[in-house]
């Protein structure tokens, strides 16, 4: 593959821009599902970049893992989030669905917490 002609330059510039745009969309999207889908596209584009850079070993690994497996993992995690109740990702002042102690508890450690870790008590 010729990596220096003007056409090659155009392809490379386009791929680089596409990569940056997909990353921005994946990270900028407020909807997690959209973010994950853009991220899978990002992984596939990256696999193409590896082909352009003539590193087929990495392109193979990226296509199978970076795009395929990571994407599957992220989608499964999204399904898991729905199941375990992550729908309330907008913090509200009154949130009746869950015990308030977990949130009121002081994890930053500036000294107002009086409760020991739950598991230590349990054992």
């Amino acid at each position, binding site marked *: 593959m010729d990596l220096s002609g003007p056409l090659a330059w155009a392809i490379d510039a386009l791929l680089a821009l596409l990569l940056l745009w997909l990353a921005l969309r994946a990270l900028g999207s*407020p*909807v997690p599902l959209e973010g994950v889908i853009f991220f899978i596209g990002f992984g596939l584009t990256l696999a193409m970049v590896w082909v352009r850079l003539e590193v087929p*070993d990495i392109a*193979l690994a990226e296509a199978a*893992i970076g795009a*395929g*497996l990571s994407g599957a993992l992220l989608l*499964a995690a999204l399904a898991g*989030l729905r199941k375990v109740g992550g*729908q309330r990702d907008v913090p509200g002042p009154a949130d009746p669905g869950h015990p308030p102690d977990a949130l009121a508890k002081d994890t930053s450690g500036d000294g107002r917490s009086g409760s020991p870790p739950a598991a230590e008590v349990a054992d």
Partner: protein
Amino acid sequence: MQTRMPGSRSTLGRRLLPVLLAGLCGGLALTILSLSPPGPSSGLADEVTAALAQTGVTSPVTAVLLDFRGYDTLLEMAVLLLALGGVWSLVAHLPRIDGRPGIMLDRLTRLYLPLMLVVAGYLLWAGGTAPGGAFQSGAVLGAAGVVLTLGGWRLPPRLAGWPLRLVLTAGLVIFIAVGLLPIGFGSLWLDYPRAWAGGLILLIETTASLSIGATLAALFLGGQPRGDP
């Protein structure tokens, strides 16, 4: 999950952050440009090519992965297993997500699974001379495991206990055993005897790709398959 995040108030730190990151980006970009012309010491490609004949494989990347820097690869496989140990310790307390495959997915599984196994085998075999090798082959095997899982297939309980854990650890166990072998012959840790190097590397790669594939599929499956301890 489909709700939008609330708009954010802008604080001093928030306004400073893009400026700081733009500075970081610019500085790093200048660094890259300063490195762009090949310097006096540009990488190890020549050294690798020169020493390739002594490794028993002809693919430079495989030689680096399993011979020159095999110790790194061994520890990276431990990192992979560690992640699975962590996931298993975490998800024991989570509700299980069970998949009910559609007809479409079921057909796809039947169609693609043998293909994926062939690809994985080819990548493994090709790794010694051409692009491919344990990690790529393991990745394809892992993907095959994911497809199987999505198709609703589960490991039979009698295989989900120590037999599964044996497959998961086999790659590392064989790697360590082969690494210790030369010490018995008065040589160094991981210094494969030259005559057998090619065969030993293939042995390590085969078990490693099985273990990597099983680990990746198990990571996707999340919860530890139920079976006897």
